[in-house]
């Protein structure tokens, strides 16, 4: 699944990079870098969308976008000191967030010492790709923290982890770099000029300088600012109409709150629609925002999603995200729920696992119930005659069973006696009267016996079929009465 996603993301580099040299380096880590944001922390959204928005704005200035990307990648990698030694760019960013606070500070202190040296070499090697911004390279080492970050980032063995680590940057509590980046890049992103990279650098430096010393509160404020920027940027990018290819209802409606609930369905069109950069990145970032934790994301139930046009399902990690499989998954879960209900109903099914066996059990149980009904009806056919005077007690008993026990036990006997007397007299009308009386009796716990009409009307409203006629008319040759009597009488 990851491969699919990042293969579809591959389009980014060809579109954006004009420089051949610049292409090669940023492309791999960019593509793979997007991988992790897809899965991981939510606050990547701002950074990544900033990255994407700026390149998308400046398709011609591929170099600038490349630099921006690399910059972000460095920052990310810097913050991810714990993972710097990791070779794989797919290392879980979730491992990093807890360590991010320390590394960021640690880098400042240690990065100047240990890292810059090896980092310098790497930096040089990687800076070759960043032909567009030698100035950036020069400025980078100047700011202590930024230099540490850049070196830390460049200390990675490949370019891949940088962009991947970028995703981890915002996940740290001290989102200084992320905040700085977010503050800086969006502004740059909106500006289509080619001076983006330089502006980004300066802004980053300033923000970094401001961001580093303060405690994590600044990072948080930056994070919140980032969130605002995210929504702003999203609105801006949406306004540009780049989201048009996407399912409009999904993409245009989301707010910052909704960003936290990315849809797998939104992912799907983004995945397939390779031509739309903003959409892809936005969705990925949205996904990032949506999942502060991977597991939390998996556990999010579908009903928690804000109601939209159709059922939105979040794709769990490692599962297919196309609409067919999602619908299948929804259906399977529904079926599973109902099977559980049936398991509770059918006695002795707790140990059974497996649908086929369960189905057989259910079938057997239904058959046994139907056979029981048949057998009991045979029995009742033989033991009938005593029912006249036993009916009262039976009715009382059943009333107790089915309704709350009430002191109105006199009424049932009245009702039944009247029913019987009627039954003896006529054929058609006693049925209705019996029914109305019975209904009145039946409604006894619910309403006074005098309120027979109320009871019947209640029932009538509830039951829209033929019985309504029976209930309301009480007389007459309504179809319902006929059918009812027919159903009860001989063939």
């Amino acid at each position, binding site marked *: 699944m990851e491969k699919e996603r990042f293969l579809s993301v591959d389009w980014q580099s060809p579109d954006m990079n004009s420089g051949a040299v610049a292409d090669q380096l940023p492309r791999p880590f960019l593509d793979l870098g997007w991988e992790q944001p897809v899965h991981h922390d939510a606050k990547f959204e701002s950074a990544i969308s900033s990255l994407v928005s700026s390149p998308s704005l400046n398709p011609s200035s591929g170099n600038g976008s490349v630099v921006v990307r690399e910059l972000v990648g460095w920052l990310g990698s810097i913050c991810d000191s714990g993972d710097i030694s990791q070779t794989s760019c797919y290392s879980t960013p979730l491992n990093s967030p807890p360590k991010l606070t320390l590394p960021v500070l640690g880098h400042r202190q240690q990065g100047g010492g240990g890292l810059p040296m090896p980092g310098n070499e790497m930096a040089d090697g990687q800076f070759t790709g960043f032909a567009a911004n030698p100035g950036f390279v020069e400025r980078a080492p100047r700011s202590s923290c930024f230099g540490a970050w850049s070196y830390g980032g460049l200390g990675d063995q490949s370019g891949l982890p940088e962009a991947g680590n970028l995703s981890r940057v915002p996940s740290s509590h001290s989102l200084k770099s992320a905040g700085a980046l977010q503050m800086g890049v969006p502004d740059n992103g909106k500006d289509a000029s080619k001076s983006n990279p330089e502006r980004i650098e300066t802004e980053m430096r300033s923000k970094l300088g401001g961001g580093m010393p303060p405690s994590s509160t600044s990072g948080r404020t930056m994070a919140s600012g980032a969130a605002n920027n995210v929504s702003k940027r999203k609105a801006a990018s949406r306004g540009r109409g780049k989201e048009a290819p996407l399912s409009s209802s999904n993409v245009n409606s989301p707010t910052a709150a909704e960003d936290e609930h990315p849809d797998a369905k939104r992912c799907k069109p983004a995945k397939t629609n390779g031509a739309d950069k903003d959409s892809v990145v936005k969705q990925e970032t949205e996904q990032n925002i949506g999942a502060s934790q991977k597991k939390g994301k998996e556990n999010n139930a579908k009903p928690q999603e804000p109601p939209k046009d159709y059922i939105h399902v979040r794709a769990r990690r490692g599962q297919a995200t196309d609409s067919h499989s999602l619908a299948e998954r929804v*259906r399977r879960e*529904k*079926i599973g729920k*109902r*099977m559980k*209900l049936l398991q509770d*109903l*059918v006695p002795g099914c707790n140990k059974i696992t497996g*649908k*086929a066996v369960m*189905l*057989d059990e*259910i*079938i057997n*149980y*239904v058959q046994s*119930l*139907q056979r*029981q*009904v048949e057998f*009991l*009806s*045979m*029995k*009742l*056919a*033989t*033991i*009938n*005659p*005593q*029912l006249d005077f*036993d*009916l009262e007690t*039976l*009715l009382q*008993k*059943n009333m107790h*069973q*089915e309704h709350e026990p009430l002191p109105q036990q006199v009424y049932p006997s009245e009702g039944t006696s009247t*029913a*019987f007397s009627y039954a003896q007299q006529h*054929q058609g009308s006693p049925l209705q009267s*019996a029914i109305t009386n*019975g*209904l009145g009796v*039946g409604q006894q716990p619910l309403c006074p016996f005098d309120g027979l009409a109320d009871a019947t009307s209640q029932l009538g409203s509830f*039951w*829209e*079929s*033929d*019985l309504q006629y029976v209930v309301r008319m009480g007389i007459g040759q309504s179809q319902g009465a006929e*059918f009812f*009597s*027919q*159903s*009860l*009488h*001989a*063939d």
Partner: protein
Amino acid sequence: MLAFRFLRALTLVHRTTPNSSNAARSRRIQRAAFASMAYSAGPRRAWSRALLCRFHFHRARRRCAGRSRTAGVPRRPSTTGSPADGLRRLVPGGTEMDYCSLLEETADYIRCLSKQVKLMQSIVDSVGPGGR
């Protein structure tokens, strides 16, 4: 409500056909049981609707002819291998449902059936062994 309906129907059956055989009466009682079940379940349930349709138009056989036929005639042999075929045959109206709603209807049908069985059993017990 189930109790009242069924008891009423039961008494009516006994009153109106005192001379018929036990077998015929038992069949009528069984139909009364199912009818009262369906009535108490209400029109919300597909199985109750199917049951009532079957009962109401059983003799007329004019309207709902297609429906009653499809409900009554054994539709397809289980050579198709669908796991729910047996269940479809058992639950009234089950042949025309998708699997998901079939399960739901089955659950409701089982609940109603068990209520009916309990009711009839209690009637038999209360009448006691001294019947007729």
